[in-house]
């Protein structure tokens, strides 16, 4: 926002703007640090990422190796969170599961938002029939349960980790689209855009080099706030048997074990562990996202 709003001017003006920028950044960081929940969220996220990245160094077990002598055991010194129906260490599986679950959520959110931004930019900036069409399309997506769209698309392109990301991206762009479109609609009336247009700058250039940076705040917040939804959706779909292949440990495929009444009723640890991992991670991202929004975009609280 800071950089772009400084119109064509002398070096002094730019320097001023830069100074303003750094002090603003400092102010924001201070504000963020003051938000205890947001800092807690960030800390949890960092811990989760660390655990996912360094999983092999944090556990002596193989996430896939069965040990039929140790099935459905409760927490112990060897198995901190207990074991599942094949005697595999739950702590280990949560670590390895985090890799796939977080990867899916983050990449889905990034791609979905990229689609939303492009569509929103074109719709908001160009307006007209294109805009109308895109708005109708997004309404179409909003008027029936996302789960059904996801399932139908999933049936269409087939299962698999990459396809799951693709499906989330195809079906998840509408929220960002609406926000970005609204921003573009208001921004295109602003003076600096009019000025660029008057200079004969190409419309694509204006869209992506002039307006986009000022919309990035909204987008970054959107990307963050969408991640929890995808974590939960991945788990939900895997729970219904539509997600990633069952043999890949993810938080969702681990939860699938709760479909067995035996596990559901008499071995709660098996589903409590991945369930709590999901909830904690989602809670952390939500707190972090809220904090981020408070700091970066005070209008939207």
């Amino acid at each position, binding site marked *: 926002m800071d950089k772009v709003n400084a119109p064509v001017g002398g070096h002094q003006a730019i320097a001023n703007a830069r100074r303003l920028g750094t002090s603003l950044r400092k102010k924001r960081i201070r504000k963020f640090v003051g938000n205890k929940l947001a800092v807690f969220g960030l800390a949890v996220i960092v811990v989760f990422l660390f655990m996912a990245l360094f999983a092999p160094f944090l556990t002596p077990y193989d996430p896939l190796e*069965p040990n039929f002598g140790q*099935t459905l055991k409760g927490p112990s010194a060897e198995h901190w969170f207990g074991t599942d129906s*094949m005697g595999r260490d739950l702590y280990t599986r949560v670590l390895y599961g985090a890799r796939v679950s977080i990867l899916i959520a983050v990449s889905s959110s990034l791609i979905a938002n990229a689609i939303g931004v492009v569509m929103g930019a074109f719709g908001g900036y160009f307006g007209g029939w294109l805009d109308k069409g895109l708005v109708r399309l997004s309404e179409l997506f909003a008027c029936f349960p996302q789960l059904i769209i996801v399932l139908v698309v999933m049936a269409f392109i087939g299962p698999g980790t990459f396809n799951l990301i693709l499906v989330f991206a195809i079906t998840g762009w509408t929220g960002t689209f609406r926000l970005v479109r609204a921003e573009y609609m208001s921004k295109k009336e602003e003076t600096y855009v009019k000025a660029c247009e008057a200079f004969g700058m190409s419309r694509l250039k204006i869209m992506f080099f002039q307006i986009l940076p000022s919309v990035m705040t909204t987008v970054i917040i959107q990307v963050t706030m969408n991640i929890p939804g995808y974590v939960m959706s991945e788990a939900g779909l895997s729970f219904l*048997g539509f997600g990633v292949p069952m*043999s890949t440990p993810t938080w969702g495929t681990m939860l699938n074990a709760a479909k*067995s009444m*035996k596990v559901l*009723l*008499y071995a709660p640890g098996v589903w409590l562990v991945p369930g709590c991992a999901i909830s904690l991670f989602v809670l952390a991202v939500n707190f972090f996202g809220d904090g981020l929004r408070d700091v970066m975009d005070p209008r939207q609280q």
Partner: protein
Amino acid sequence: MKLTRKLLALLLALMMVLSAAAFAEGAAVEQTLYLTFPSSNNANTYDFLYPWDNETLPNNLLWLTLIQADKDLNAAQPEIMETWDISEDGTVITMTLKDGLLWSDGTPITMDDVVWTFERYCDGKGNYWSFVVAAMKYIKGYDAFHAGETDKLEGLTWDEKTLTIELSSPYASFLNLMCQVAPLPKHIYENCSFEDDSFKVDEIWREIPVNSGAFVVTEHSEGSYYVLEPNPYYAGKPSKITKVVCNVAEASNYSTLAQTGGVDMFVSTSQDDYAVMTNTTGYSMKAVPIIFFRFLAFNFFDADGASKGFVDDVRVRQAIAKGVDWHTVIGGLFGDQASFTQTGVLADDVNYIGDWYEFDPDGAKALLDEAGYDYSHTLKIFYYYTDQTTVDVMDAIAYYMGQIGVNVEAVYTSAVAQDVYEGRTQDMAYFGLSAYDSLSWYQMYLRDNMDSMLGCKSVFADGVAELEVAFSDELKAESLAKLQNMDKENIFFLPVYTLNQQVWVSDRLSVPDDCFGNGWFFYDYQFEDWEIVK
């Protein structure tokens, strides 16, 4: 008339007093048996033709079969037929009708009803148990009748008293299968359509329940319950239980229903039910070993019929049999609720001669090397059960094979028939088979769709034909030994385990010792002696 009534009332009163005295508080127990079923997708309450799962007990009460089976499903007692006899060469079966049998509307059960029922089995329009239909195909003239070329089954000749069935070739279990055939009242249902299960919505079928068994439907509220009470025209020994209430509840498993009360007896093969029921008081369980296989079916050819060149070498299949620690996997996942088996015969059957493949990863590895197995290939398994136990079995196979350098990928498919038989991208598929007898397992080798994956038909044709005509126990043992050796040599299918059937009986119900067989079929439950004691 009046006097008789009075006398009768007096007699009844006297009997009640006497019985009350005899049983003290026992007589106060209302003899009502409660059964409960989870509602199926189609919300049907009962299905006479194709009883499924726990519907089989009420069906046993509603219908008489031609011959009554004992709990091992062998022809044992007269039921609709007084006598039965089979010729030396096994091709002619003669049965005589019992006198004085009546339908529940009071009309006599005649040979016409019996013949009409045979015709329904043979015209291919209704949905019947496939293993019975498989036997019916041996009746002379079946093909012509089935194709609609003639309206008379050549192999059937009958008069009022005697039915003679002529088979085109002998079929050893034909008589036993007559225990699974319940004649229908022709005068009621002859105008019903049986095509594509449409009888289920046929009003005649639903509104006029006329049947032959010890009980009749006296009350029926679709989708919620039906009540059975003694059939006044039933000639057999009356049951102590005087009312059977069959509730339909919207739940997916029996254990939930049992916990809320109202189920006196049910059968299940579910590990979930087992876990929940062992934690539920007031029930006891009898385990019945049944033929309910889980097995790997290999596939040698791709969609165009060209050889894939991986599992078609028998040494690779042997390596899979040896490379996975099946005993540990099955024991770990099922405890004593499943039996490990390596042939098409139950492990506790006297004829079982399996258990050749001990867990031996080094031996498996040697076999693979010997076969020149391409370790860069990923073996693909299709599976279609979604429960966690199946996923666990798949994971275990992938893990153990991974230990000897073989990559295994287990892929869930919902469109299993299409993917397995037509897509053919798999090297194996994980199947389930519930069967009436060992013959059904071996007949699987003769199926066209299996043959197209394995080329197994020609290998097994003679052996199966021998078992089909194995009339004596010795012949059967000999034939099964031969077939099991063929199982071992070829490993077209690799059986993994069979599940026990659990029969759960509530403490308020007393049943004769050892009366339970496979609860999915018609047999003598000795229901007359069942009693509610609490």
